[in-house]
């Protein structure tokens, strides 16, 4: 009854699709995949991280979105129609990650892995990386927003089969 291969090969495709859908539909922004040579040297300044956990009978995982502060500002302005304060920028980042996780969850559900989402947590700081847990599938992709030079952002999705 092994469906693990379905989760594996599609995870970066799935996460890319989810990201594109959220950015184009909700924010009307086009994004491009970006090859990061050295992750640690890419970002100066702070990043907003938002994580949402995915939990189901057969799977457990996390969706992590990291945005440069300036990009988070811009996205907040698009969503709310005006510049937002620190709290609003955090809320928007969390909601964005929630929507992305929602799309990832929908695809997992369609592949036979139903799950529920946790509440988004938001933090601020340097770039972080999800620790690969055992047999988990992990996808990490970097992106830039077309026409915006606010810096690149990162999306990581980790899914572990637990049953």
């Amino acid at each position, binding site marked *: 009854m092994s469906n693990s291969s379905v989760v594996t090969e599609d995870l970066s495709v799935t996460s890319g699709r989810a990201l594109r859908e959220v950015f184009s539909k*909700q924010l009307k922004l086009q994004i491009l995949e970006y090859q990061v040579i050295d992750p640690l040297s890419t970002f100066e300044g702070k990043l907003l991280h938002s994580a949402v956990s995915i939990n189901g009978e057969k799977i457990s995982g996390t969706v992590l979105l990291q945005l440069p502060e300036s990009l988070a500002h811009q996205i907040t302005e698009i969503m709310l129609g005006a510049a937002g304060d620190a709290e609003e920028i955090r809320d928007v980042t969390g909601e964005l990650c*929630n929507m992305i996780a929602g799309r990832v969850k929908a695809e997992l559900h369609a592949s036979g892995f*139903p799950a529920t989402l946790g509440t988004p947590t938001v933090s601020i700081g340097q770039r972080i990386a999800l620790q690969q847990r055992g047999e988990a599938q992990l996808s990490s992709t970097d992106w830039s927003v077309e026409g915006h030079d606010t810096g690149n952002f990162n999306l990581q999705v980790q899914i572990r089969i637990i049953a």
Partner: protein
Amino acid sequence: MNPKILSVDDSKTIRMLLKRLFTPFVCELFEAGDGQEGLDVATREKPNLIILDYNMPVMDGVTMLRHMRENPELKRTPVIMLTAEASPGIIATVARLGVRDYVTKPFDSDQLMEKVARVVALERRPEISEA
């Protein structure tokens, strides 16, 4: 009397976004952060439309809908679901409880407003010039 719109979502971002979408129009906007609060506000204000999320603490959207359908005052209140939840099972359950439309997140604001227009006739505020 001005149309009343109630948005029920635990995400402050979504509530603020909806507020922004409705600001250009003549209407009264109300908010609730969960299904229980949603019921309280709906009972008090008798809104012309409820925009309802599914995943919320305390009481989720479907439970709130069920309660509404059992309440003669709220039974006919039109509801548009706005949620990240897209599983066919939930959609079927919600459809059986009778909602006017079901919008999944992420969503196109224009399309949402078109659906709103089908349910509630709104007028633009005169001081708002073309956006």
